[in-house]
């Protein structure tokens, strides 16, 4: 059973294929690392899976059991109900975190559960504080994004994605903004997520991080899988 099935994926940008015929599966409870040099297409794959980049060819499927499959295929980006269905399956942690600058850390985390899933504000905020506690940034709940360090901002961003409880979590260059000590913390955090049954797909060129916690590695070169 796979949580994510990518088949012959092609992503074009500026009339050029930046991802060209990539296929892979990711299972629940697996950390799959996409590695490759800059421009190899690993971030484009994440963005296509996140529904931020239109699919030019092939398909992306979430969930294996028939009726509940969510599928991305060539065509315009999903909107409305299709977008909500997609983001019930997949969340993303950006390289530069992209926290909402006008909201406190905890507000960043409970915004989507309240407005997308219609949860009660109190319950959503309790969940948000628990997630921040678990990730070790509970004390920073009332801080604004510009007051957070890189590592703190990343953990808030992870909490924000986890608050929507997606089975698949995408992480773009998760170690880029961290010092070595924090990288070890992150590896522990990610392992905890994976052991809970979540699928994590991480684009990175940090070989140490990959050796430390990835279950499987896909090596990308010029938009194609060159090894794995």
């Amino acid at each position, binding site marked *: 059973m796979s949580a994510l099935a990518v088949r012959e994926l092609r992503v074009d940008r500026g009339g050029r294929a930046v991802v060209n015929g990539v296929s892979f599966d990711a299972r629940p409870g697996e950390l799959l690392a996409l590695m490759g040099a800059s421009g190899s297409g690993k971030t484009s794959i994440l963005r296509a899976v*996140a*529904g*931020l980049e239109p699919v030019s060819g092939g398909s992306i499927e979430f969930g294996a059991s028939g009726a509940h499959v969510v599928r991305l295929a060539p065509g315009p980006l999903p*909107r*409305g109900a299709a*977008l*909500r269905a*997609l*983001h*019930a399956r*997949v*969340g*993303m942690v*950006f390289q*530069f975190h*992209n*926290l*909402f*600058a*006008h909201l406190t850390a905890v507000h960043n985390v409970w*915004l*989507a559960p309240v*407005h*997308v899933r219609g949860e009660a504000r109190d319950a959503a905020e309790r969940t948000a504080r628990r997630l921040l506690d678990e990730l070790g940034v509970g004390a920073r709940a009332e801080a*604004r*994004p*510009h007051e957070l360090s890189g590592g703190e901002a990343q953990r808030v*961003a992870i909490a*924000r*994605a986890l608050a*929507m409880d997606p089975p698949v979590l995408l992480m773009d260059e998760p170690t880029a903004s961290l010092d070595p000590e924090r990288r070890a913390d992150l590896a522990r955090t990610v392992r905890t997520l994976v052991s809970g049954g979540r699928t994590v797909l991480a684009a990175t060129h940090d070989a140490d991080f990959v050796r430390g916690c990835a279950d499987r590695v896909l090596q990308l070169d010029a938009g194609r899988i060159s090894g794995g």
Partner: protein
Amino acid sequence: MKPLLVLVVCGALAASLIAQEPGVLRFGGDAEGGAPFMEADPNDPSRVVGFEVDIAALLAAGLGRTPRFVQVGFTTLDPAAERGDFDIGLSGIEDNAGRRARLSVTVPYYEFREVLTVRSADAARYRSLADLRGRRVATLGATGAQEILERARQEHGLEPVVYEDDVHPYTDLAVGRVDAVLLDAVLAERGVRRNPALTNQPADMGAGHYVGILASGQTALRDRVDALLRDAMRDGRLQAIFTRWGMWNEDQPRLYARVLAGESGRSEGRSEDRPLRQTESPAEATLRYLPALFRAALITLALSCVSMALAVLSGTLIAVGRVYGAGPLRALLTAWVELVRGTPLLLQLFVLYFGFEAFVQLPALVAAVLGLGLNYGAYESEIYRGALQAVPPGQLEAARTLGLTQWQTLRLVRGPQAFKFALAPMTNDFVALLKDSSLVSMITVVELTKQTQILAANIGSWFLPGLVCAAMYLAMSLPLSRLARRLERRWGAGIHA
């Protein structure tokens, strides 16, 4: 260096044109008054023609000078005369005690009757001012008719509406914005000729006289002009002029007889001789006007607030349309913004109020709010558009990956941050709007600047009224300017990503 030289030469040329030249008689008037007073010559628009122009030529010939026309707005003729912008003002200027106290005034050369004009359908209903309780009655500013209407406001409870020109009172009467017009017979005849659905009532509303005005120190020239006018009354040259312009009637020989007999020519009981509080000092008059000025300041403030609300609303819609809309909508909105920003606000107000009156008769206040609000809305939209685009796109992608719809993203993420970016420039725009609201006086709204102008015309000086008016504008705008600076310090530097 060259531009500087050009500037100096132009300045010197302008100065020489303005300075008094021997051999030239500069006569001041408002060509907007139109025929028969004065208007641009249809065959040569650089020249003016009219009975006032003929009288100026007659006087210049008598003085051995060449006449030269100086354009001055009708409502500012008095201060322009006193300042020496021209030697003599001839522009259907009415004789009154206030003018005589402040300026050198010639003998009267034409007698007119005030005439009440109504729509023909109302001819039986509105025969006199007493019939017009609670109704809007139009007139031209700085005239005896305005004085009569101000008194009738107290006596009969009608509402005077003061225009800057003598054409639109009649067109607005025809379309129903006002229910009557009170103006002199010359204007009333012309108004009815141009608007066939109007009727002049025969009732006696009072009479007045046209005079020439000179600076208070110019009594010697005034006496020479008086002598020339008397000569022209005697030998029929004045009659020839008024006959040529279709204005001669039986009132004039009686006036001339009185003037030539050495009387003032000013008959008792006429509107021009009602007491005008001549003994009042400018300070006392300003003090008496203070409550009216405060009321006018409130109108300015209320007008600005409502207009700004419309500007924020329309600006937001335009900005959102330009950022999120499809191609054709974006092109349409861009064209609208460029049209509004590329043409003068005053022109837009005229078009809204007068230009569209054949299709929709907007009340003056509504036209004022629409004009100011839509004009400033175009500017606001540019601020908001920039502010929306200043929100980092990464945050919008983050919102999308959380499942927020585009509308939710705008409402919860993009809008609130853009609002903070926009707040300081918005406050600055509100201060600008507060001052630009004075332009709506041109479409009959009596706000702070217009009320000040009325006061200044009545006491014949802009000094004290100008100071009081400026103080009131400052009292409204300074706190806002300070607020804008504080907001700018707090948020203008941008939100840290």
